[in-house]
């Protein structure tokens, strides 16, 4: 069983992020707050509630080295939260948006973060030491619709974005004073801030969930037309692979290695995609157990399963601050999975990741015991 832990935190979770040591998880329970839970003696306890936003928090990211949380919301604001003693202290970052912020990601060096918005713009924020505040630089051109997802290349400069205009774009976010120039190539070849490196027009429908592979050589993103796109050689002539699959569309993806990608979405079950030796990507299988088809003869057990869920819901009331880890049943998520995060322990070989969804659950998956997938890791 690939799913090793299931936790029902809320009725619906918008997004989630883990603390650097994975002992705490921050998520938005589909309202204007960020809840932080800590695992204490095998039970999850609510330790902080960050209340500053006026509307739903659409994106949360927790930096691994500097231990800062950044949150963005439909209220067009973003806050950087710093840990000072027992408290989380917010710093408002003025994004100058006139539409909702939809997604946020810290850069690999954690000196910048990028925000995608419904205003068809991407804000790249960096810290100005002299004035002790975060400055936002906006990429205004190119996007024809909302920016749904952003992803940083390992070089801390290139940023990939997906949009509901169906395209995936890569920009340079080079900021003087924050990023160091690569002097060997000469200053003329370094792209300016906001310069578009490449535009990928592979999908005829909304694009979501872009991620770079660990080395930065491959880009993956999904389209709402049940397709996933893998692109190599980002530059003037990229090599793209369109993989169509039988099932419902995906919302987010994660590279667990150079050759394996996990996709999550409306099928409520993580999908494994892998590249063979020649670099050809294809769908391998689902990770969790598939739901029984309705036409099967086991309608009796389905009724009792539904009844059990209702009964189980009554126990985990929203006012409850402690959540018991629940037993793992057959189909793990029962609603759309919209967020996936990497959970590798430093120095450990095991590949773990977590998913959260509209069913309010956070599920932790471990690929260690999946024998048939070992060759791709």
């Amino acid at each position, binding site marked *: 069983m690939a799913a090793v832990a299931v936790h029902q935190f809320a009725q619906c979770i918008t997004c989630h992020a883990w603390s650097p040591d994975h002992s705490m998880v921050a998520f938005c329970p589909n309202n204007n707050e960020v809840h932080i839970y800590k695992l204490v003696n095998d039970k999850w306890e609510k330790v902080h509630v960050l209340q500053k936003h006026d509307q739903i928090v659409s994106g949360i990211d927790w930096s691994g080295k500097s231990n800062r949380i950044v949150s963005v919301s439909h209220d067009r604001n973003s806050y950087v939260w710093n840990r000072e003693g027992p408290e989380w202290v917010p710093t408002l970052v003025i994004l100058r948006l006139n539409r909702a912020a939809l997604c946020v990601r810290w850069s690999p060096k954690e000196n910048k973060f990028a925000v995608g918005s419904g205003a068809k713009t991407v804000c790249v924020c960096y810290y100005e030491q002299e004035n002790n505040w975060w400055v936002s630089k906006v990429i205004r051109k190119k996007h024809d619709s909302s920016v749904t997802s952003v992803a940083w290349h390992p070089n801390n400069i290139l940023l990939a974005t997906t949009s509901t205009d169906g395209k995936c774009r890569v920009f340079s976010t080079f900021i003087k004073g924050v990023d160091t120039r690569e002097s060997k190539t000469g200053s003329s070849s370094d792209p300016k801030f906001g310069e578009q490196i490449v535009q990928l027009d592979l999908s005829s*429908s909304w694009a979501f969930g872009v991620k770079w592979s660990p080395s930065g050589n491959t880009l993956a993103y999904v389209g709402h*037309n*049940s*397709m996933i796109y893998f692109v190599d050689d980002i530059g003037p002539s*990229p090599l793209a692979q369109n993989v169509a699959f*039988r*099932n419902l*569309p995906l919302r987010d993806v994660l590279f667990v290695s150079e050759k394996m990608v996990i996709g999550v979405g409306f099928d409520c079950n993580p999908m494994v995609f892998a590249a063979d030796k020649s670099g050809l990507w294809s769908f391998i299988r689902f990770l969790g157990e598939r739901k029984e088809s309705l036409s099967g003869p086991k309608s009796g057990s389905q009724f009792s399963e539904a009844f059990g869920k209702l009964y189980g819901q009554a126990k985990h009331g929203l006012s409850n601050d402690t959540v018991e880890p629940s037993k793992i049943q057959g189909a793990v998520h029962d609603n759309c999975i919209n967020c996936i995060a990497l959970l590798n322990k430093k120095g450990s070989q095991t590949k773990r990741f977590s998913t959260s969804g509209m069913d309010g659950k956070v599920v932790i998956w471990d690929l260690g015991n999946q024998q048939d997938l070992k060759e791709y890791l």
Partner: protein
Amino acid sequence: MMAGAEKFVEADNAEAIITRIEHKSRKIESLLKQNKPVEALKTALEGSSHMIRDERCKSANWIVVHRALMAIKDVEGMFSSLDPEYLYRGLSTGDRPTCDQCLRIHEKLTERAGLGCILRSLADTVNTV
């Protein structure tokens, strides 16, 4: 990577296409008389209908495809490479026998191709029939 440079079949005029469709129609009528509905449907689907932009040509093509579609009695034996776009056009007519037939085929198509196939045809607003 799509460069977007599609070659339109009616580079010259729509009349040439209409003539081609009429030619197809005669072939289909004769195949149907010989009780070969599957062959007829294959013939009807020939030619890249996605490239046609002119509405009259699309309608003319649809009439021919519709004729062959309705003649299919054994939906099971039918090959499943029928473009779902035609099924949706059929369903949008609201005509009872057409909708019945299209729904029957749609069920089989979904079994074989999965939901992703439906989503791709719904999401595609460019290549319509």
